[in-house]
């Protein structure tokens, strides 16, 4: 009797299964579509900007001469050519908050780097506005100088020996240090803990090159502009951003949900890039920097932009190799 009941139950189950249809799904979506910034690359091949064994002192520039008065540049000099052209062409950034960025309300470029470019223009023309800004990505900086597209590059550019081979640098006008930016709730405190996870940095930057050298390197997401890293961070597509503390401070200023962690991985001395052949321009720019520090203009600019980001309030000592 029990066997009969079991057989009936089995039959009921079988027929029940046989009649059950599958629901039809008309719109099958497996995952959301996350947009990516234009030009993003994952683990790009190594290029210039790589930190090389130190066989020079990248922070030592050429000793300045006396600063000529505005509009009276020595004949035949690079500065005189710029004076005749009527404007200084400066390669800058428009996406790095506090250093070089477009103020969305006035539409003008502002920041600590932009102030340096205006000082050079003021020294040549007596007018800080005689400057044409050309926006460059990190990766374009060296080529723009080598092609002569720009007179100077003032764009959070670290002076390295490898770069000294291709271009000249002014004296160091600011010293930053590479650190790590993560979400406020994150327990990560050092780049060492990021092995295999996605971390953002700009293409062609020293920050990107340094992260490659870690024993367990993170998966590197390379972008054109630093602000693209902030976008990826806010969209949850990377766990961290690693670059100079000054740039990271600009991101924290835009999003209080982020924090800077970890030790100062490496000092990043910023110099103004100048084409290799324009030695007179290097000495001139160094004279402008000397004047800027002694007149207090450097300090005023620091107070305006970088005080909110912390860091060193004193200008670096200008060093020369003669």
């Amino acid at each position, binding site marked *: 009797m029990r066997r009969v009941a079991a057989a009936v139950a089995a039959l009921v189950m079988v027929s029940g299964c046989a009649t059950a249809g599958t629901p039809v799904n008309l719109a099958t*979506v497996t995952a959301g*579509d996350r*947009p*990516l*910034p*234009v030009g993003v690359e994952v683990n790009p091949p190594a290029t210039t900007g790589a930190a090389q064994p130190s066989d020079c002192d990248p922070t030592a520039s050429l000793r300045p001469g006396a600063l000529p008065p505005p509009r009276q540049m020595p004949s035949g000099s690079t500065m005189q050519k710029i004076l005749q052209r009527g*404007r200084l*062409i400066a390669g800058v950034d*428009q*996406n*790095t*908050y506090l250093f070089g*960025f*477009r*103020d*969305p*309300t*006035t*539409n003008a470029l502002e920041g600590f780097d932009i102030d340096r470019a205006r000082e050079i223009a003021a020294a040549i023309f007596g007018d800080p506005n005689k*400057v*044409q*800004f*050309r*926006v*460059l*990505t990190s990766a*374009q900086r060296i080529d723009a100088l080598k092609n002569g597209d720009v007179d100077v590059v003032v764009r959070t550019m670290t002076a390295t020996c490898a770069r000294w081979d291709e271009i000249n640098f002014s004296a160091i006008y600011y010293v930053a240090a590479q650190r790590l930016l993560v979400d406020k709730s994150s327990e990560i405190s050092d780049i060492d803990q990021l092995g295999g996870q996605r971390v953002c940095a700009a293409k062609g930057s020293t920050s990107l090159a340094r992260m490659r050298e870690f024993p367990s390197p993170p998966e590197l997401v390379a972008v054109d*502009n630093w*602000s*693209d890293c*902030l*976008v990826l961070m*806010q969209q949850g597509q990377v766990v961290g951003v690693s670059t100079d503390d000054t740039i990271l401070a600009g*991101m924290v200023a*835009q*999003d209080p949900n982020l924090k800077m962690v970890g030790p100062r991985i490496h000092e990043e001395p910023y110099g103004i890039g100048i084409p290799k052949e324009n030695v007179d321009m290097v000495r001139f720019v160094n004279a402008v920097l000397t004047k800027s520090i002694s007149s207090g203009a450097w300090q005023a600019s620091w107070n305006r932009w970088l005080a909110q980001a912390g860091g060193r309030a004193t200008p670096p000592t200008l060093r020369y190799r003669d």
Partner: protein
Amino acid sequence: MVTEAPPEGARSAGLRSVTRTATTTPGRLSVAAVGLVLLTAVTGLFAALTLQDKKDTLDDLVSHREPLAAAAQLIFRSLSDADATAASAFLSGGAEPDELRARYEFDIAQAGAALGKASSDVGADSMAAQQVDILSRQLPVYTGLVETARTNKRQGFPAGAAYLREASGLMRSQILPAAEKLYEINYQRLTSEQEDARSFPWITALLTLALIAALVVTQLWLTRKTNRLINIGLAAATAAVALALIWGTVALLVESTYVRGAERDGSQQVDLLVQARINSLKCRADETLTLVARGDGAAYEKEWAELAPTLAGEGNLLSRAAAAAPTPELAAPITEAVANAEAWVAAHGKIRELDGTGQYQEAVAMAIGDAPDSAAVAFAALDRNLIAALDAGRGEFVAQTSRAANALTGLVPGVVVLAMVAGVGATLGIRARLREYR
């Protein structure tokens, strides 16, 4: 007549009885009558269905197919304009001007509405379904990015620019190509339906000719058998069928002429103008994005240099459309468009010159300001001309296609009535002869 019971079965018996019937004259008459009536019925039915189908195709062209091609075009236009407007708003500095914001919102609303219409129609076309899928999935992502960009911009954060770049990248790499593809698919479907509408129904024509031949042969045979020259019933049947043939042929010739006209002056002209408009929108976005990139926008300027010659230059789309316009009224907005495109290219040259010599703010003013020689003014005028020309082209399409449909007015009921006349005529004509054998 006595028939023996056939051993093979009823069916072959029936067949044999018909065969035997056909050997006698009255028998043959009966077979001829049945055959003629059947042939008339088949021909009449076939012709009525074919012609009704043709009329339905014409109605569908006006009420369905052409509006959908226009909707697909509208999706591209709205989205491309939204992208260019967002870039202009970004360039303007401060909180964006109200009119730019309103324009962006209108563009997005219009794109959404047009996308709804386009998606209702994709049906079994998997290519079209794929494009609609991309559009429906990415459009909300795009608008989300633009709003995030806007919020950041209002707070004075440069992250806004990064979000806008990401949004524009998504628009240009995925959304706009899908919209362009969708328009191409819809235009191809329109073209092939127009081909259907003007194709000549050969099978119906051959059936009708066969029916006339059968009627004539029957009459010749009767004349020989009975020495009577005219059989009124059959003659009336022949006349009815011949009338249907002539009416149908003339109506279809007129119809295909109008459909061809609708193609030439309507849809092909509209397609040229749509291409011009798509290129002009791409150029406008390139122009503003070059300024947003501020020296880092060589790729945008490269695309401008590739596309601008299709708007102003040797053998450009606009002058081709102007030359192809059938009437001066239709040509007028296109001629204006040619002039405005040239003014725009000139303004663009000035923008590049200003930007290249360091006068960035002046270049921005030239691009988005409202001075009479600015690029914004020339582009807006060009777009107005193109809208007017597109509307005129669409009007021409509807007018000519409706005329084509009118040419078929009454043809279907007419053919049915004439087929009935022919059937009754054949029956009566042969019955009169059959009676003489009783």
